[in-house]
């Protein structure tokens, strides 16, 4: 039994430590995903709360043979889709939010070896087509397998792979524009 399963069992049994353990372990990944998908910190925080609550409510439906984080990202994906379906975010609002991300995204408590590089990569991710961005984030933040991404996004696996390939090409292009070459 891995660590996630132990925490999950505690969580299922109603023990707060199980829930806190999983929340603290994965909140940055899920929040990063939601923030970069919605482009709005406040919305992302609401969706983060909804994601974990939905996971809590549906804990008994979790297939234990599956990866916990993939399952959690599947829920985060659904929350994001629901949000866009119901809220119909205006494009100008989104632009405001995107500007806001630039300033808000840097959490002061997080020390990074290369902060500017981090800023640049996130700008490149922001530029992606939403479908490419989602596949990219599910894979790189959630560590979700392509097979699972196809299920989450309800598309053939080849479509998911194609989106990822284009995402990487486009990120590379954006990085080049910002003076970062392929060789590191």
């Amino acid at each position, binding site marked *: 039994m891995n660590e996630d399963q132990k925490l999950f069992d505690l969580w*299922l*049994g*109603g023990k*707060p430590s199980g*829930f*806190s353990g999983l*929340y603290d372990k994965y*909140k*940055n*990944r899920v*929040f*990063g995903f939601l*923030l*970069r998908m919605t482009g709005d910190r406040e919305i*992302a*925080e609401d969706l*983060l*709360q909804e994601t*974990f*609550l939905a996971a*809590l*409510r549906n*804990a*008994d439906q979790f297939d234990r043979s599956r990866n916990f984080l993939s399952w959690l990202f599947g829920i985060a994906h659904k929350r994001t889709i629901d949000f866009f379906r119901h809220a119909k975010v205006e494009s100008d609002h989104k632009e405001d939010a995107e500007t806001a991300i630039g300033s808000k*995204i840097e*959490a002061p*408590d*997080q020390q*990074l070896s290369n902060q500017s*590089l*981090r800023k640049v*990569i*996130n700008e490149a*991710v922001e530029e992606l087509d939403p479908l490419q961005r989602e596949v990219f*984030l599910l*894979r*790189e*933040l959630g560590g979700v*397998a*392509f*097979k699972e991404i196809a299920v989450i996004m309800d598309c053939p696996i*080849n479509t998911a*792979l*194609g989106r*990822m*390939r284009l995402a*990487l090409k486009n*990120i*590379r292009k954006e*990085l080049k524009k910002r003076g970062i070459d*392929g060789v*590191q």
Partner: protein
Amino acid sequence: MACSDWEETALLYSSGELDEDHEVEFKSHIAQCESCKAFLEQYQKDRESLFSIEALGAAPSEKVDLEVKRVCESSKKQYTNIAVFPAFAKKSIISVSFFLIGFVVIGYLMINVQHSEVVKAKTIQTNDPSGSESNQMVNVAEILKANPDSADSINSTPLDSNRSFSKNRGNLDATGVVPVDLITK
């Protein structure tokens, strides 16, 4: 296969989703294709440096952490009920299953015991020399008492040959009872 397809294969290779046969094919392709090899190397380097959790992830505010934990804590009762039911159901299913399995096993054993008792009874008559002989003696005595004229036929019954036959075959049907039947005829 075009190089764009091989690049998608490279993605599956990186995520550990490529089966052995495809992995061999893929490796032989990148051994001779600079472009696909470069794509894979670049992706692997990017994953190590640029696509880290530190770079792509983001920390929610402490206020949100507390709020999420508080809301989840307050809904504890609700989810405990949800969580307890399946646990209870699971236990019930396990208990019922054990019960049913127990019934089947006991039933099977009882049938077997009955059967083996019959068999044992027959086996004793057949294989146990003292048992079978004493049985035969009783039988013979009774028959002689009832019909003294049949003594000759008793001596000529193929009792021993029958017994050795049954022993050799390990067959429980050919028993010492047979001669008795023969005697009565």
